């Protein structure tokens, strides 16, 4: 399983490097403008983020001891997966369609917001789970 994930990650990295090299070549040959090359690269980065985040809720790992912890972990993974996938798609969309100055700033904001939602929800879930466990012990 880990080997498969590693292979996918290496293949993705190789694809990004190959596309970057091809774009560099095309730019030198005058086939693609500098702006076009930059946009294509960023769209690829956004789509990679979306593809990776898509599988985030599937990484459920081993079973937790309490049903409370299990459901909260699942919810956190789902929220993280959805927010990062949508952010990746928005990132790609912005770089494909928006003016460069807008895409530059907005794409960063979108990903930062998704990251904040993911981490915020995970921390909130963890805290709520700990509180519930403490309350149970105190009873």
């Amino acid at each position, binding site marked *: 399983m880990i080997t498969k994930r590693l292979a996918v990650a290496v293949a993705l990295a190789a694809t990004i490097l190959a596309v970057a090299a091809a774009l560099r070549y095309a730019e030198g040959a005058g086939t693609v403008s500098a702006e076009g090359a930059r946009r294509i690269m960023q769209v690829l980065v956004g789509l990679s983020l979306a593809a990776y*985040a*898509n599988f985030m809720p*599937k990484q*459920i790992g081993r*079973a937790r001891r309490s049903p409370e912890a*299990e459901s909260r972990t699942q919810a956190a993974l789902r929220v993280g*997966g*959805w927010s990062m996938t949508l952010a990746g798609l928005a990132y790609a969309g912005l770089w494909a369609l928006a003016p460069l100055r807008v895409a530059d700033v907005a794409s960063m904001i979108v990903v930062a917001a998704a990251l904040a939602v993911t981490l915020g929800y995970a921390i909130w879930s963890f805290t709520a789970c700990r509180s519930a466990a403490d309350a149970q012990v105190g009873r």
Partner: protein
Amino acid sequence: MSKVFKALAVPTRRKVLQLLRRRPMTAGELSEHFPVSKPTMSAHFAVLREADLVDAGKQGTTITYRLKLSVLEDALLGFSQAFGIGVGDAGPADEPALEITKGRTS
């Protein structure tokens, strides 16, 4: 991907996934929500497991199911639920159990 579509095409299996959204459940707990026989439910669980939409953990004689949906599969589930794909299609819901029964008798 065809396994995922096959799994999501039947309302009973979609309901199972909806129930697992709340929390992990045992096979018995899930079966209580459906007016179908246990072999039929087992067949539905097998289809969901094969499509990698659920994770089954065995503790003694109890099997606990956990949801294992990617974002795309989650969206497909919501989409098929919203548009009622397969609703009123009673035949396919019993199809897996029938296949198993046939397999045992032949």
